[in-house]
Structures are given as structure tokens and as C-alpha cells.
């Protein structure tokens, strides 16, 4: 059945028509997404611009919209993220290493694996409930930086685990075999080779996880962070011995998304500008983190070609 050339050409033209149609539809869909993002950002910037002055970052919230700032909120956010990272990173990386490099194939491992996927799908508000029931009431951490940090750490744990596993998987088996062939133990192999080579990939995952945590509102509301806070938590470094203090862990706090939420619920119209400005800052923080992650990802790809 060798079709005539003209027939084939007609056929191809018809098929290619769908190529073009699809390419255009695809582009449109893409643009909807991208334009929404840009529109969102542009609108926030336009609204928030009058507030985005240095003193916005150095003042506490106030009932006067022009004076109100985000000092307590961004400090709170950073401290909460510190706790989150401190808990989620070791836990997540260790779990990822176990699952990828150690876990024998048995039902327990299977359960852990299914569970990690499942945990990634658990709504964040449910983590908020866990935090309320467990951290705030059972463990008596109260509505503190510690509670919030732990909650968000559990929330991003699956992200860190999955990212770790993926970067570990990218290290070729030949490197593992090479290490073993030289007499390395499993832990030597992991700690001397696999982990260092995948560290930037893991870091990327951690940053993505943290950038998700930074914008989370619901679980933090659940533990009760919607509060007027016009002071800073205790400083983590103190003037006297032992120079490090952990009192801030138990301090009340507020974070960026909460501050933003708070402002949006004010009766005065003017506060909407503050909310927009806080939104810009929050978005900029997230974007910056993502940009770092993207940069890292790009950089690793260029650096190591197995």
C-alpha cells in the first residue's frame, strides 16, 4: 500500500494542523498560569508600594497604618524557619538515606514508603490539628515558636525525604560499587561519597520545602498565632555565658502570613495597603528561596555529569 506522495503530504498536513493547534493551546494555558502569577505580583506591588519603605521593616505593628511594620513578623518567620530547618533537615535526610541506601525489601519498608507518599498528601490544616492536640496541649509547648517550628517541620518532612531520595538516586551505582570495592563499609560509602555528591540536590529540596513552609498560614492559625505582637522574642545569643539562649523557643510570636491575614481583617481600608506590602515581602522571600533552589539545581546539573 505505498500511498502516493501527494496523498501522504495531504495526510501530513492534516496531522500537522493538530500539532499547531495543540502548540497554541499549550502556550495559552502556560500564559494563563504565568500571567496570573505576574498579575498577582504586580497588583500586590502596586497596592503595597506606598508602604514599602525601610521603616516598614523596622517597626512593629500599630493601629496607624502608615506606622505599622513587619518587624515582629519577619523576625518570627525567620526563627520559626530556623526551628523547622533544624528538625526537618536531619530527620528528612536521615530518613531518605535509610530508605534509599539501607532499607531491606520488606513490609516495614513498604509501609514507610507508602506512608511518606501519603503524608505528602495530608492537608496542612490537619498538621495544625496535630500540633494543637500534641504540641500545644499534650506536650505543653504552648503557642510558641517551638510549636510552630515543629509543626511546619513535620509538614515539610515528606518533601525533604523525597528530595533526598531523588538526589541519592542520581548518584550512579558505579560510584557505590567503586567505594565498596575498595573495602568501604556502608556508612563510609554513604558519608564519604553518596551524601557529599548529592548535597546540593538535597539542599535544593530543603529550600523548596522551607519556601512552602514560609507561606503556610492555616496550621499556624490553628495553634493560635493570630496575635498583636509588638516586641521581639528573646535573642538567641546572649551577652553572658553560655552565650546561647533557647528562651525564644517558648516565646509568643507572629509570622508573615499571619500578619498579613491580620491586616486584611482590619476595618480600616488603609490597612489593605499594609497587607499588600506584607504580601510583596512574603512573595519576594518565597521567590528568592525558589530562585536559589533553581540556581542550585541548574548549577549541579552543569557541574557533575556522571
Amino acid at each position, binding site marked *: 500500500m505505498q500511498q502516493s506522495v501527494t496523498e501522504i503530504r495531504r495526510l501530513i498536513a492534516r496531522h500537522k494542523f493538530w500539532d499547531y493547534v495543540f502548540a497554541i493551546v499549550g502556550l495559552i494555558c502556560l500564559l494563563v498560569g504565568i500571567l496570573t502569577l505576574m498579575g498577582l505580583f504586580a497588583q500586590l506591588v502596586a497596592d503595597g508600594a506606598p508602604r514599602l519603605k525601610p521603616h516598614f521593616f523596622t517597626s512593629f505593628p500599630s493601629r496607624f497604618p502608615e506606622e505599622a511594620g513587619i518587624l515582629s513578623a519577619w523576625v518570627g518567620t525567620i526563627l520559626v524557619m530556623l526551628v523547622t530547618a533544624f528538625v526537618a533537615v536531619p530527620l528528612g535526610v536521615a530518613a531518605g538515606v535509610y530508605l534509599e541506601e539501607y532499607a531491606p*525489601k520488606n513490609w516495614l519498608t513498604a509501609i514507610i514508603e507508602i506512608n511518606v507518599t501519603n503524608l505528602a498528601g495530608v492537608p496542612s490544616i490537619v498538621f495544625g490539628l496535630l500540633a494543637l492536640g500534641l504540641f500545644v496541649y499534650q506536650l505543653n509547648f504552648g503557642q510558641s515558636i517551638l510549636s510552630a517550628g515543629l509543626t511546619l517541620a513535620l509538614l515539610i518532612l515528606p518533601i525533604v525525604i523525597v528530595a533526598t531520595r531523588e538526589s541519592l538516586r542520581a548518584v550512579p551505582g*558505579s560510584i557505590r560499587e567503586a567505594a565498596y*570495592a*575498595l*573495602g568501604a563499609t556502608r556508612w563510609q560509602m554513604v558519608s564519604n561519597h553518596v551524601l557529599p555528591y548529592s548535597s546540593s540536590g538535597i539542599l535544593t529540596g530543603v529550600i523548596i520545602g522551607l519556601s512552602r513552609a514560609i507561606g503556610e498560614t492555616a496550621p499556624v492559625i490553628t495553634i493560635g498565632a493570630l496575635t498583636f505582637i509588638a516586641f521581639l522574642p528573646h535573642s538567641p545569643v546572649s551577652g553572658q555565658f553560655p552565650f546561647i539562649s533557647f528562651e525564644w523557643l517558648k516565646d509568643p510570636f507572629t509570622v508573615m502570613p499571619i500578619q498579613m491575614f491580620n491586616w486584611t481583617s482590619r476595618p480600616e481600608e488603609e490597612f489593605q495597603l499594609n497587607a499588600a506590602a506584607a504580601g510583596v515581602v512574603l512573595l519576594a522571600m518565597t521567590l528568592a528561596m525558589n530562585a536559589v533552589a533553581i540556581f542550585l539545581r541548574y548549577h549541579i546539573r552543569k557541574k557533575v555529569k556522571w
Partner: protein
Amino acid sequence: MSASVQPVLKAESKNLNFYYGDFKALTGISLPVHDKKITALIGPSGCGKSTFLRCFNRMHDLYPGNRYDGEITLNPDGVNILSPKVDPIEVRMRISMVFQKPNPFPKSIFENVAYGLRVRGISKRSVLEEKVEEALTNAAIWNEVKDRLNDLAFNLSGGQQQRLCIARALAIDPEIMLFDEPTSALDPIATANIEELMAELKKRFTILIVTHNMQQAARVSDYTAFLYLGEVVEFNDTKKIFTTPDNPRTEDYITGRFG
């Protein structure tokens, strides 16, 4: 140098079977490995050459479901290196391996060679330096890299990388060296270099090499084993195998009638 007429037995595989899960990849392999000689393993793709080679340093232990059955004794102490009671790490410290594709670590040239020593707990800089130089010299790559020991190993060419991997394997003073198609990823010149190097190395080590290139086997080895479908079809002096093989299948393979 020990080119004795009666070769010394360095290791011996005795009725070895090997299973990948349910799949039996090796059946009743019995084969001597002579001291300070090169033994080549040839055979069509999938016949079990690599599988057999990797039994010698217990590489199969790394993956679940693999099972050995039979013995490989290592002389002079006559220990069965496949025994589950023997620590595979111990085995790997005595028998080192060079892989098909050069696989240096993404570390400096120096650290690549020093790694085996570090694993053994040696961390004194002067000792390391001495050993690394010695290994690189023996792998015939010292002159090319001596000025850039701190460069990343990835910046070397494929042939250089493979010689680096050989140096890495040499640095730990193994008793046997295993080579799994060490030149198949290399160009003709690099191949020639490595073949020369092996001729040099066999003065001091026992070598087991898998190759898919019969000419290479003929060029470098003292003994050759022809494997087919997981069994040894014929083992003999390399000269004998390539001129007057006993088994008609060996002949068919060598003359390219199949494979």
C-alpha cells in the same frame, strides 16, 4: 618474579553456582586462578563472565536476593571467601576491582587514590602521599598527573580516568585484581596503554580479566576460560585455546560463528 614452570594456585573456584533470585546465572564453575598470571574470561554476552568475576569480591552481596553456592578459596590461607561467615569487607580489602566504565569519585585525583587507604584508617599525610605516588607510578599515569593532583578526576580523559581507577585499586596492595572489560569504553590508543600496563602489573599481582574482545584475551592473558550459558566450556593455556581448542563450541565462538 615468579614465572615458575609449575604455576602456584592463588585462588580456586570449586563447583560454584550463583543465583540472581530464582535465575541461576552460574552452574558448577570450577576454575583455578594462578598466581601472578593473567586469566581471561571470554564468552558471548550474558554468559556470566561479569557475574563470575564479581563473586571474587562479593559485589553481589550489595543487592538483595543474590545467592552463592559453592566455594572460592583464596590462598595462601585457603579461606572460602564466599562463606557467609567471612566479612565481605575483609575480602574486598584483599581483592580489588576495576570496572568497565571508568568510575572515579568526583574528588581530586589525590583523594581518589587515597580513598582505599583512608578506609583502612590511614590518614597520615606523608604515608598517603608516598602510597599515592607509588600507585600512580605503577599505573603509569604519575607523569601525566603529578602536577595536578588536586584537580578533579573528572577532568581527565577516559583512558586516564581508567588508569586512575587502576591506581586506586593498586594503592591498597591487593592480592588479586579483577578487571571487567576495562578497555571497552576506551579508544584504541588508551586500550593499548592499559594492555601494556597489565603486562607490567602481572609481575606483582594476580589478574583476572573479563573481555569481549578475543584478540585482547589472546594478546594479554596467560590462561583463558571460555564460558557459555553460565558454564565453563573450556579452560586452558591461552595459546592452546586460540590455536587448537578442545571443544568445538569454543572454536565456533572464537572464529565468530556465533556471539
